[in-house]
């Protein structure tokens, strides 16, 4: 027996796949902690853009993880990866939230924009904030599934295959939905712009012209 032989390196939680962690998390809270670290930011972002305010986003994010933890013993990966399962919990909670409240609040601009635009001139900040709010308002007018698609595509930067797993659709269906979403968003923005020819976006185009 070679006593100098190093024992094989034990894999840390960080090295394990989601599927392995999920199995461990059924009896090991620390494994669930690793899954939490991997997804808390993504789930928070998804809920933030669907609810439009950080306080409800925090509340619903907490509920997503409590629910996931309570049901992880019964979770089995039947074609729905853990990430997709979490997003589906979030999606259902957000849908209930909208149904219970019957309202959609406006994203508080001061919180949304302040962090990214502090270094720019005040006029530019206001203009960019108006542009963003204009676009976000148009996104909020879309059906929930189209809002979900845009958030997963641009905020989470997921592939069509991953989005398909979350939304329970084929990759081809996501491609088609993305196309229709962009066209309807463009049409909606153009309709809105017709009333105000000097919108922020128009001004931006002028500013950027050589």
């Amino acid at each position: 027996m070679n006593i100098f032989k190093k024992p094989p390196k034990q894999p840390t939680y960080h090295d394990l796949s989601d599927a392995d962690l999920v199995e461990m998390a059924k009896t090991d809270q620390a494994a669930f902690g690793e899954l939490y670290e991997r997804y808390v930011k993504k789930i928070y972002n998804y809920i933030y853009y669907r609810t439009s305010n950080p306080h409800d986003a925090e509340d619903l994010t907490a509920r997503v993880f409590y629910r996931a933890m309570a049901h992880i013993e019964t979770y089995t990966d039947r074609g729905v990866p853990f990430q997709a399962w979490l997003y589906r919990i979030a999606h259902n909670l957000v849908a209930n939230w909208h149904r219970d409240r019957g309202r959609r609040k406006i994203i508080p601009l001061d919180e949304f924009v302040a962090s990214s635009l502090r270094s720019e001139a005040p006029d530019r900040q206001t203009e960019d904030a108006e542009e963003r709010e204009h676009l976000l308002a148009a996104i909020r007018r879309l059906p929930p599934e189209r809002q979900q698609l845009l958030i997963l595509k641009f905020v989470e930067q997921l592939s069509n295959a991953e989005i398909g797993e979350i939304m329970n659709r084929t990759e081809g269906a996501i491609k088609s939905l993305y196309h229709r979403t962009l066209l309807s968003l463009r049409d909606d923005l153009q309709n809105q712009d017709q009333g105000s020819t000097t919108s922020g976006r128009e001004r931006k185009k002028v500013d950027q012209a050589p």
Partner: protein
Amino acid sequence: MTQFDSQEIRLQDWLLTVTDAVQSGDDDLDRLLGLSSAPSTGADDLFDLIRWLDTSLVEQEPSARFVARLKQDLIDEPEGVFTRLRRLPARVQIAAIVAVVAGVLLIVPRRLLSLGSGDKKATDIPALQP
């Protein structure tokens, strides 16, 4: 497949190519417009829209305090009955509380009634021999 269908599929492909390019920092409109799948009209509007979405839908950072506190609440607290109860849906929590109260209401009066005659019955039971 009709000509309309094939045009639509080409547009879908082009939109995905543009989205991937914009997300990776490549916003060379001339190159993207030169692709065979690029639509003949309205391409620049769609390109602007994708770029606008990319700069507006930015990742938000949850507060570090919230993230740390939630993790502690999730995995660090002892697994007591009340902790488990708190995670259940509201209607299950209410049902559990009603069941406990009903159980107490059933048991306590019987115990109180049995206390009155308890001393007499106790003397009837013979002592166990070692």
